[in-house]
């Protein structure tokens, strides 16, 4: 077992029925300073999640006993532990269902280990209690959540209240995919859940105002068929 630095190891629970994937993830994750427990079934996974109290869970959707989304819902009944879905299912409906059920991110198999580790880091960072930052920074963009101010290259950018509400939601969950439904119900209310054209128009406006080149967005990314994600740039 290798550990990097003196940091305490982060406990990861892998719930996947494929032994090969479990083995591979264990090797990769342990090499990068995580401690790994795994479970081959959904029920076992729920028990492990309760017993070993992992700091993050990697969950496969296609489990032999329970559907992954069901496992997700059951864990979410009592825990806010970050959960990343790992699945071969690449249909948007599955992604949306998982995200709406409380998953923090979605990685489609096959994936590169680099990508997985990056997602793990982002998710973990976001899940930590934010003490300091009422100020969000990404590149030359600043969002002052306390004063409801947005600055680009130091210049204040004027946003409508709806645009600001949308931006605030994306920024607070930076790195995480927010589904259309989540964005629409949060910003416009539950009756607007199907009105995706509101989103399209306002996202376009936000990009006009905030991106360097609105035709090549770097800050607000489209997750095709699922939703949007704000990217925190160094």
């Amino acid at each position, binding site marked *: 077992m290798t550990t990097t630095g003196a940091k305490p190891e982060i406990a990861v629970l892998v719930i996947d029925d494929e032994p090969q994937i479990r083995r591979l993830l264990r090797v990769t994750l342990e090499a990068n300073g995580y401690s790994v427990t795994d479970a081959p079934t959904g029920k076992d996974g729920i028990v492990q999640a309760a017993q070993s109290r992992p700091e993050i869970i990697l969950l496969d959707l296609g489990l032999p006993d329970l559907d992954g989304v069901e496992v997700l819902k059951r864990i979410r009944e009592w825990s806010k532990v970050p959960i990343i879905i790992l699945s071969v299912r690449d249909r948007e409906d599955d992604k949306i269902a998982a995200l709406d059920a409380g998953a923090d991110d979605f990685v489609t198999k*096959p994936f590169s280990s680099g990508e997985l580790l990056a997602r793990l880091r982002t998710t973990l960072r976001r899940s930590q209690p934010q003490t300091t930052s009422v100020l969000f920074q990404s590149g030359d963009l600043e969002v002052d959540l306390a004063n409801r101010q947005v600055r680009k290259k130091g210049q204040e950018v004027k946003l409508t209240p709806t645009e600001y509400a949308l931006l605030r939601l994306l920024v607070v969950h930076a790195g995480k995919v927010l589904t259309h439904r989540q964005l629409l119900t949060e910003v416009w209310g539950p009756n607007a859940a199907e*009105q995706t054209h509101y989103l399209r*128009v306002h996202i*376009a406006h936000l990009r006009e105002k905030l991106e360097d080149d609105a*035709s090549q*967005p770097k800050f607000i990314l489209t997750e*095709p*068929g699922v939703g949007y994600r704000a990217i925190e740039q160094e």
Partner: protein
Amino acid sequence: MIEKGRPNPDALLAAIQSEAARKTRGRLKVFLGMCPGVGKTYAMLEAAQREWKNGRDLVVGYVETHGRQDTDALAAGLPAIARKELTHRDLLLAEMDLDAVLARRPQIALVDELAHTNAPGSRHPKRWQDVNELLDAGIDIYTTLNVQHLESRADTVRQITGAEIRETVPDSLLDLAEIELVDLPPADLIDRLKSGKVYLGERATSAAQNFFREGNLTALRELALRLVADHVSVDTQEFHRTQPEPGAWKTGHRLLVAVSSSPLSESLIRWTRRMADSLKCPWLAVHVESSRPLDDAAQSRLEKHLALARTLGAEVIDTTDDNLARGLLRIAQQNNVSQIIVGKPSASNWFEWWRAGRLLRHLTRESGNIDLQVVRAEKTGNAPPPPRWRWRPRLNWKQYAFAAGILAAVALVNALLAQFTGPRVPGFVFLLTVVLLALVLERGPVLFVGAASALVWDYFFLPPKFTFIISSTEDGMLFGMYFVIAIVLGQQVARIRAQELAERLREERATALYQLTRELAQAGTRDEVVWQLIAEVGRIFSAAAAVVLPEVKSLRAHPDSSLVLTDKELNVAEWAFRNRQAAGKFTDNLPGSDNLHLPLTTERAVVGVLSIHLPLATLPLARRDLLEACARQAALVLDRVALRAASEQSKLVAESERLSNTLLSSISHELRTPLAAITSAASALAGSKTPDPDFNRSMISEIQEASARLNRLVGNLLDVTRLDSGHVRPKLDWCDVGDLVQTTIRTLQRELTGREVKMEIAENLPLAKLDFTLMQQALTNLLLNVVAHTPAKTPILLQVRRENGHLILSVADSGPGLPPELLPRIFDKFVRAPDAPAGGSGLGLAIVKGFVEAHGGQIAAANRPGGGAIFSIYLPQTETPPGGASA
């Protein structure tokens, strides 16, 4: 030309069909006797014992041993189904429990006394109908029958013995049966009778004694023997039909029997059936309807006769003509009839005799090359006497009053007129009145006006006035001629009108049927057919109807039905469905039901049941025919719809089979290539002893590339499968097309490195309604296609614009362009350019096309004038994007 010595295909088909029918249907074995007491039941039980010992599953459905010890002993060893007890007017009656036998499903069931009449409240009025149902269920039946109970022989037996035969069994039931004759010399039988071994029922024995005279018995025995002999010869013929037969039938006989409401018809029908039987030829039973309406009793007798003819295997035709002979000859000529059979008039009734004589003369004169058989027909049973010509008390007082009123008015006008013209002109005015009234009134009132006006003319106008006396010879002749002209004219006009009426009714029927046919022909789906059928039947019969169709497990009434069926009625419908027979009201099957249930049958299958609620006491033949014709028509259409659906399904299956074959052969190669790369690279890494970083890196990149290729292939295969299974239904949503293009390019960053991608997106492009993911996939495939088929660094031009209500997305390059011969097939599956680099599956463009077409759009491929290829996607945009986004 049919070669000699080869069996007629139709006959062969019939033979095969009856062979097939025999296989699925149970076999009927009949123990036939000449009369009660010959030991049929005993013989049947003996045969049953043999089969039982051979291990066949056998039950006694119903056997009556009448307490005879030896018979009892034989029956005792066999398993029996408990009888079902019914109470009828305080009488406890035991009948065979049909449902119990059906549920038990033995191989053989014993059912005694085929001709037995069931107790009221049973499913069928007759036991032979129970047996028929058991046979349909595939159960073999052993049964007993006396020859006198056979429909076609009943008449003869009655003539021989004078005994009335009430219980009869249709001959058709025996057509496929095996007959075993239980024979006993008459003298032996009489001995048995004397020693009390014959059960004679509750009847007075004197009557029975009369029946069992030796002369009678000999005649009955001959009848039974002849029947069995005939039956054997039928068997031989059936056999011959499958063998080449030198020389076809010598005669193309076809018999026609004239059927009326006269009680004599019944024996005439039986006679014709026997005749047709011995000639082995088809026969028709024809009723010619005249304009004279029949009373209820006559109508029901007529229907009974036609039903009898149908049961005996005749084709029944109903036609209209006021002239009986003309009607018969017309039908005879239309159907190539060789012989017409009519009854010989009985001498007891002069009117009948005169009428029948006239008919015979007419037939003889006009029949040409058709033979005429005049058969002595006898009244059977205690049917009412033949209807004499009598005054029908069905007077239409209104018409008579109207006629009288008009006559009085015309008489007044004539009285004025006569002052100027003399007495003869009023005569013609009266005549004119008669003719005009004949156009609106029935025959009776017209004849009344004819006679009355003649008298009025004579009394009031012809001199000497106010007497019926006519003074001049001239006036006398005029009066005589007037009288004849008025009556004949009135009669003729009324007759023509009655004929017109009959013709109109007939035409209405034809029109109704035609309309139904047309409406049904237009219906494309099962639901539409059902809807039309219920609507049309409702319109024609002014009745509520339901269509019952087979669902997965049970029968269900179609939700469009205008008639709600109770569970009980649904059971009747199910019976009709399973047994392919009409059931319920107006039928012999479960007649206690409120509705008539007609199975919708074609030659191939039974597709459902039409249930109709007709609040009538009896169902006239014409209505029934029309209803059955409707049911037949609907069945054909329903069957056709089902067949079409099945053939489309099988076409679909064949297509996907073809695809999966191509898929397997083409894909196994595509799958194995990257797998081979991965395997060899991995093993090279495992086997390398010296850690050479460059070598390792190159092997790792091989693995990565092969994996990416595999992943892409799997993705393409999944997309194709989804498209083929019809599961691709775009989730149309308002999308920012610019965002779509951007996202696509961003996810392809790696593949597009080194290429300039120029984007021309129209200004102020409104939101478009499309499935973001599908279109992203389509664009991705188009871009990957360019990447695969153009040299590195070839620039790509992406254009998005809106024109004529279409969103147009095009991907253009300045590469080598598309081979012209490939253009027509470029979007087909597994089509690849001859010089295409390895790694593609030939699916990418097919998927693009599939996705675009799922959007209702189109895709085109062409070569650009300046070189290079261009692919353009056209997506129809009918809606304008909603505003108010800042709600």
